[in-house]
């Protein structure tokens, strides 16, 4: 088998094919009577699962092993957080120059001459690098030497639903695999106990819902496993009453043995996937219970993340859980937190969202660094779009001013995983609404994330309906400036 073929094939299918061959060599057909009933039932019965998980192939030397993607749903206002514009403050209340207005795509503003609104929050420089951060993000301000800010991210759609899909699947409509699915399709998991791609949510759900972490046309085992955002994060982790671990083990082994018999009769890969699924489910029962049990964390850690009540779901708790996931070899963890869509009342809404997320986001980076995990873990923070420099004024009474969407330039940040700390990449114009340096299209961002993981975005393909698809379609450039 050529290397090229190797890369173009779903790796797990390959692994299953190898397993299947071994299975037949060993068994030479189940009709050979008591061949190895023991092997069907005991350790051998688990081989199916393990081998499938162990294949890993990169296109070049990876800098990161895992990703924690903090998706801030709704579009945080970068002009109030990370991209200060003194000129806008100076000209507060003036109309936006008409030449610029023509180049912008508003989502909601209908005024002919929208007026500039300077940020009411103070900015100052931090760290050795002197990065400028707003007073709303004091904790992120304290980690700037580990952070790369990119101020010129751009996307294609002003609609949240489609901008979310664009960011997470590289396509403005439903049906494509998410970036997490692509990553685990390319790299599989390092964990034998937990799903390779896990999703945690707090606050508002993303508007495109599960499509943001769906497998699209990739095999279903690559989809993100979402945790429930209320109540128990995973239902049915405990075996039913009376089922000891040994009894559950024997039950799952029996189920998998029966499934293997059926697999041999039908050769249906769905059965192979189900065997992997049941094996992983069994392992998750103890692994996920252990992972979700925060008792082993110190009060100092809770304080660092700002977790008051470890039993209550929150963004902060999800950050801590995310760290625990990458510690356990989970490849791609995506946190969704909303809502940052401050069309109105931004003066109340934005500090409130920052209050819910600033401390924990910074704590996550610092905690990873303290544990020696930051070098291997890429943390990405950002929304599917940004917000503009002009005020969005409602015609309804008693509705305070906000900001409309901006897709031409907004800020995201990166930490760890090979991203160089202490730098600010890209420059926007005096009104923060257009890039003055080479923009980072969302495709570039995706290409760069894959690159850090050792994957070439032009080579990570999957053949579907007669065509080789990739996350970045026909676009995307790796932005070497992030890590060079």
């Amino acid at each position, binding site marked *: 088998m050529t290397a090229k073929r190797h890369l173009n094939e779903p790796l797990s299918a390959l692994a299953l094919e190898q397993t299947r061959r071994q299975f037949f060599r060993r068994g030479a057909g*189940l009709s050979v*009577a*008591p061949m190895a*009933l023991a092997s*069907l*039932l005991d350790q051998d019965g688990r081989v199916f699962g393990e081998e499938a998980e162990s294949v890993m192939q990169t296109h070049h030397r990876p800098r990161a092993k895992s990703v924690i993607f903090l998706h801030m749903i709704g579009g945080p206002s970068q002009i109030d957080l990370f991209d200060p514009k003194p000129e806008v403050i100076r000209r507060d209340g003036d109309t936006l120059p008409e030449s610029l207005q023509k180049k912008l*795509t508003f989502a*909601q503003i*209908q005024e002919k001459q929208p007026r500039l609104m300077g940020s009411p929050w103070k900015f100052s420089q931090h760290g050795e690098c002197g990065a400028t951060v707003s007073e709303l993000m004091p904790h992120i301000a304290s980690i700037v030497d580990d952070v790369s800010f990119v101020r010129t991210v751009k996307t294609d759609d002003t*609609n949240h639903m489609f901008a979310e899909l664009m960011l997470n699947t590289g396509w403005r*409509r439903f049906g494509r695999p998410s970036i997490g699915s692509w990553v685990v399709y390319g790299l599989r998991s390092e964990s034998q106990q937990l*799903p390779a791609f896990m999703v945690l949510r707090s606050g*508002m759900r993303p508007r495109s*819902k*599960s499509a943001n972490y769906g497998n699209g046309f990739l095999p*279903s085992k690559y989809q993100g*496993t979402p945790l*429930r*955002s*209320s*109540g*128990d994060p*995973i*239902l*049915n*982790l*405990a*075996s*039913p*009453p*009376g*089922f000891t671990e040994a*009894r559950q083990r*024997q*039950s*799952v082994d*029996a*189920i998998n*043995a*029966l*499934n293997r*018999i*059926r697999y041999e009769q*039908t*050769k*249906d890969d*769905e059965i192979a*996937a*189900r065997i992997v*699924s*049941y094996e*992983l*489910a069994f392992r*998750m*029962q103890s692994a996920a219970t252990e992972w979700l049990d925060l008792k082993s964390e110190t009060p100092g850690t809770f304080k660092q993340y700002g977790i008051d009540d470890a039993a209550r779901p929150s963004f902060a708790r999800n950050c801590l859980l995310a760290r625990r996931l990458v510690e356990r070899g989970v490849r791609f963890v995506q946190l969704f937190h909303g809502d940052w869509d401050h069309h109105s009342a931004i003066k109340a809404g934005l500090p409130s969202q920052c209050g819910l997320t600033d401390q924990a986001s910074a704590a996550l980076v610092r905690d990873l660094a303290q544990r020696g995990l930051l070098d291997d873990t890429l943390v990405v923070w950002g929304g599917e779009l940004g917000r503009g420099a002009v005020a969005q004024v409602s015609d309804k009474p008693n509705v305070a001013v906000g900001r409309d969407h901006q897709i031409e330039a907004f800020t995201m940040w990166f930490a760890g995983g090979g991203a160089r700390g202490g730098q600010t990449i890209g420059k926007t114009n005096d009104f923060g609404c257009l890039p003055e340096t080479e923009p980072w299209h969302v495709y570039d961002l995706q290409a760069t994330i894959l690159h850090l993981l050792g994957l070439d975005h*032009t080579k990570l393909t999957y053949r579907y*309906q*007669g065509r080789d698809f990739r996350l970045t*379609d*026909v676009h995307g450039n790796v932005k070497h400036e992030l890590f060079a």
Partner: protein
Amino acid sequence: MFRLTRIYLSLAIWGACWAALRADDGNTPTASAKVDYRKHIAPLLSKHCFRCHGEKSQEGGLRLDVRQRALTGGDSGLAIQPGNSKQSAMIARVASNDPEVRMPPEGARLLPAEVELLKRWIDQGAKGIPDGRPSSSNHWAFQSIKTPAIPDVADSNWCSNAIDRFVLAKLENEGIKPSPSASPRTLVRRLYLDLIGLPPTWRQIESFMNDESADAYERLVDKLLASAHYGERWGRHWLDLARHADSGGYEADMPRETWAYRDYVINAFNSDMPFDRFVVEQLGGDLLPIPTMAQRIATGFHCNAMYDPGVRFESVIYQVNTTGTVFLGLTVGCAQCHTHKTDPITQREFYGLYGFFNNAIMMPMDLATGKPAIPPTEKTKVQPPSSLIMKYTAHPTHIFLRGDPAQPGEQVAPGFPAELDWQPAKSWWGELDGSPSRSVKNRLDLARWIVSDKNPLTDRVTVNRIWQRFFGLGLVSTEDDFGVQTPPPSHPELLDWLAREFRRKHLSFKSLHRLIVTSSTYRQVSVTRSDLSDIDPGNRFLARQRRLRLEGEIVRDVWMYTGDLLSEKMGGPSVFPWQPESVLENRATPAKWIESKGENRYRRGLYTWFWRLTPHPHFPLLDGPDAVTACTRRGRSNVPVQALTLLNDPTFMECARKLATLVVAMPSATDRQRLDFLYHRCLGRDPISWEIAVLKKVISDQRRRLATSPKQAEAISDGHESPAEHAVWVIICRAIMNTDEFITRE
């Protein structure tokens, strides 16, 4: 000698050409025959060129998918010189041996045969490239449906009906043999699960096995089509399209009463209501001259749209988009913001469709009086049953600039897209000439337009979706999108023949189902064939059946039915079976879940109350629809959290426990006989020796262990009088019910 070499060479080229074409559709133009753009060239360009020279990207300024652009060439001049392939840069580039020059720069190069085809196409004048927007002149789905000739086949013995001739003709062309028929036991289980969504009992299987009459299979099909459960099974498929739910969605997610609509759908399928009547009633039942109660309830179809008073326009957009997806197989929603070159509908026309639904409101109707339901007051705490229906109310419709309702543009009247221009059906509901002279078109006109036999889309889309339910994939694989950017049907003639046959049989679903399930194509075994794994991994040629995991509701129904718990009661208000308490936490508006009592705890899954924001966890877990947009195809995911639920969830444990009670109640039976009973009941077959060996080992181990662990036995058995033995069988039942086969239609 030289001559001979040339002959060999050209033979080799044509061999390759034949192979290349075979992969597309098997139509080989002979050397002198005309090359057809749509059939031969478009797939080739799409495969090799459009990614960089198509709609989305025009490398070097060259765009090849639109006539005018393709013929004007790119930055480096003309690419195509019609009539002169030698002068056409396109040919020089694709045929070049220089990797710096050759197109495409990456990926597989064109086969010599493909180059040859391109040359001939250019020499013949490079005809057929579509100009701009798709229309009946350039896209198959917009062309009228013809009645294709039923092809001849060599092995006519294999064919049960015309479907098989279309399928076999293609297989024979490919040199592939169809698969043999599945075993009778498998077929019975397949039919039961497909047609009524419940497995057959062992007695039902045996009675079929013992029926030696020639038409035993056909009579079984008719029996199942006549079962009341048929309406539940196929009604649920329709409810997926209808986005049916018991609450309004959005953050508020207020409850609403729509079960009468759900029952209307079940009844419509059970009474085999013709599809055109079904459509007319659902789109415009309230506008019929003297609408019956049922016809008004039918308009609940579009009241299923998510609704929030603050964003009414979004509901209307959902209604337009659903209409496009369900009836036309078109993603009209893209035109909400602006006109797209590849869509057959302009932005203005989108708002023409919008106008039909904008001229309506949703309101609850009292099911007893047929009058508007009165909201409950302090005095009338118990509200009489009601159902959401549509009512005509005029609202002006404006184009929303960039799709934004805050930017109203020009006013438009309800109307149909110009590219989808056909004669609406005549009405049969009492209007004199079938072309009512309303000044403003209404939803009845829309319905007549949709059910017209001149409409090339709706019948194709409908039969394709039905086909997909039986084979896992439609003849058109993008069942929700028949637009230009989608792959052509695998069997275009069969699709059209089915659409015509559906018409000919008065749009009867039962006739269409009967036709499909009595075909030899449907009856093939579902075993994966190694000889096809490279040439046809997706089973597009239909040389076998496919194993399909059952839908979420059906998985649950099969567990409960096998576990002797399922209530077969039909219809009525939605029910509240057990669910974990945490499901309803963290809602913006609180929701109630007062657990149902008695048999309502064990009703079929489609009767479970559906909160859009917080549905019962079993359904989303097993790929149930979210009821936001029309669901034309469910996923079949296969993830560990599903295994956790089927292994550990109290509902499923309860089924295993009850089934074990039946096992231990068998008087003086051996373990082997008990295992036989379980295999018969769960899987409709005898166990094989390996399965018996696996399970007997578990039985003996667990008997030994549970004998000394009475507390564990009691916990597993939960109240049975002989807990140790019962617990052993609970473990066995749970294992068999967790096999892939148990939740799969083989």
